């Protein structure tokens, strides 16, 4: 008999896979009560490190060409496809769903990465435009990335839910700090392994596992975070998050499984440029 080699699930910050600086982890069991893994229990210091990494990566990622970003998002889909089996195993173990249902979730997630890959170089055209000024001026409006966006992944549908949050945020040129599903965090960390091999620059996506109750208040109050997708938080916490976020007027949005380009535009800012016309 051969003993399995088990994986240590760690955090993903700035392109590296550190353990929590707190040294903490929490035990995960499958629905039958068997031990699965001890993922990291991220601390608020880990969260701050993740924000620093995301901020450092923003200039490069937001300046990458839209075509380049699209290629990288498509590459994520390619890498995900190749690792499907691993995601199916993790999802069915932690969510207690059938292999068929887990497979469907993985396939939907892959297709969603492809969908947003194609949006990268189209959003400016579909949402921007030129404006007819009553005077001799050329004037145009384009959407630009917002900055560092926190994504609190949906608790259920651990891979698909986080993809619904994460893909539009980085497709729009933002960098992200993702807080994984608390009960099923393994697909998030396995996704980190996908991201790390998809030519995505380190720091564009940073992934934390742990307790939302510990991490979300610090994310909401962090002055270097520009927006938060709160789809994965209980609605009862909206007020608290928005109050903390008002300190720097964070753009805070909740979505109900939305996968439209609106989800990209929610974390983008319209910029309007004027120039005189003349000789």
């Amino acid at each position, binding site marked *: 008999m051969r003993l399995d080699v088990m994986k240590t699930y760690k955090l993903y910050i700035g392109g590296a896979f550190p353990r929590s600086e707190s040294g903490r982890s929490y035990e995960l069991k499958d629905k039958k009560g068997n031990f699965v893994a001890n993922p990291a229990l991220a601390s608020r210091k880990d969260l701050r490190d993740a924000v620093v990494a995301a901020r450092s990566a923003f200039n490069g990622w937001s300046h990458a060409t839209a075509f380049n970003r699209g290629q990288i998002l498509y590459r994520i889909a390619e890498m995900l496809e190749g690792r499907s089996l691993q995601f199916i195993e993790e999802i069915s173990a932690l969510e207690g769903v059938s292999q068929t249902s887990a497979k469907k979730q993985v396939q939907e997630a892959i297709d969603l990465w492809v969908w947003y890959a194609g949006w990268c170089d189209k959003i400016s055209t579909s949402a921007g435009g030129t*404006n007819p*000024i009553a005077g001799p*001026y050329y004037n145009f*409006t384009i959407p630009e990335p917002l900055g560092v966006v926190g994504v609190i992944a949906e608790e259920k549908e651990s891979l698909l839910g986080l993809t619904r949050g994460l893909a539009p945020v980085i497709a729009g040129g933002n960098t992200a700090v993702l807080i994984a599903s608390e009960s099923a965090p393994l697909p998030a960390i396995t996704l980190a392994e996908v991201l790390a091999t998809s030519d995505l620059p380190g720091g564009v996506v940073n992934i934390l596992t742990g307790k939302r109750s510990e991490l979300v208040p610090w994310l909401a109050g962090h002055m270097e975070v520009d927006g938060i997708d709160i789809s994965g938080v209980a609605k009862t916490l909206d007020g608290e998050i*928005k109050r903390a976020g*008002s300190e720097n*007027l964070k753009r805070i949005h909740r979505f109900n499984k939305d996968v439209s380009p609106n989800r990209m535009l929610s974390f983008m800012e319209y910029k*309007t440029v004027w*120039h005189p016309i003349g000789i």
Partner: protein
Amino acid sequence: MSTEIFEYAPAPESRAIVDIKSEYGLYINGKWVAPHSKKRFASINPATEEVLSKVSLADATDIDKAVKAARSAYNKVWAKMAPKERAKYLFRIARLLQERAREFAVLEALDNGKPIRETRDVDVPLSAAHFFYHAGWADKLNYAGYGDNPKPYGVVGQIIPWNFPLLMLAWKVAPALATGNTVVLKPAETTPLTALLFADICEQAELPAGVVNIVTGDGSTGAALVNHKDIDKIAFTGSTEVGKLIAKSIADRGIPATLELGGKGANIVFDDAPIDEAVEGIINGIFFNQGHVCCAGSRLLLQESIVDEFIEKLQVRMAKIRVGDPLDKNTDLGAINSSAQLAKIKEMSESGSKEGAQIWSAPCALPTKGYWFAPTIFTGVTQAHRIAREEIFGPVLSVLTFRTPSEAMEKANNTPFGLSAGVWTEKGSKILWAANELKAGVIWANTFNKFDAASPFGGYKESGWGREGGRHGLAAYLKGAK
């Protein structure tokens, strides 16, 4: 330095066209009603300190009445109306504003203190244009890119500032009505009169009662409006401080807000700029409307090699700014809007001197009555100075310098605000590069402080949420639109 200036004969605009009532009620449900509190407060002419009228102080009871009227008008009339009919009401309003343009221009100059040249050429025509532009959208919303049949929110609470009283009313009311919302509008405490005259326009346009309600008052009135439980959306233009308070107070209710807040706009002049045009642009960028402009170019960033030449030309030009009677058609710079604002400008200026910057003010005579502040620049300003970081909202320019283009971008973006920025250079590729790097919602290249109904306006970061104007501004009043 040349200081010659033509002597202009006074060219006062007559105020006979304006009929200001001695007191005003609240305009609720198409009727003038007395305020529940029975309290009234004065609106004065800041150029003379003359009391122009007494206006009503609305409290929570009045707000409730206005919101109920707006709700009823929304349910019974406005939301049901065929969009093309809604459009025609807005076209009517646009035309009526044009017909009565002179009256509004004079009243705005009296109540606000801004020069008649500006109210006549900017505030009023842009206000009419805003209604005309949005009128056309009312029956074309299916083609605005927000999906089929996009829906209004319902009743919108709108709070506007004192720097462009009528124009801000137009920016708020026109898109709200075009998209099918009804409104409760609170004008600024110091400048309520053109909004009250606008009620007369609504009457002449035969706008159904309750679609537009105008409630005057102070900060407590605004708070009562924001906190009213039956408001579906808030639209606010004003300070970042109050904007944050509003964001906090609606956090639990899940209603959206558009916030147009403060700024500390960088106006960047590269060494290859057309210098004379740039001087004009900087002047317009900071002294337009007495500097009471959220998107003012209040930080001048000069490339080091042109600093001496530029400052000299700027001072020559500043000395020719004509400060005085807002109703004189030759006046460039009018009165500061209120004694409170004047005190704030003075305090900020003193901090500039105290912190080590060098002050220079245009050598102009200021009237003895009213609130006045001479055009002023500070040189030797560093990024740490308060006058480089905080909004002054007055005719005070802070001059900083830079060596390389990337240093200019770094300094320009080194602010929690992100409303506007200006770029002056003859080199096209540098303009587009700078426009790309600057974190601001509006970039003016080789121009400044230009506005148009078709052009979205609004800021990044702590300058606010959302846009006003253009196709993008419609999203603020349609559910689910971005």
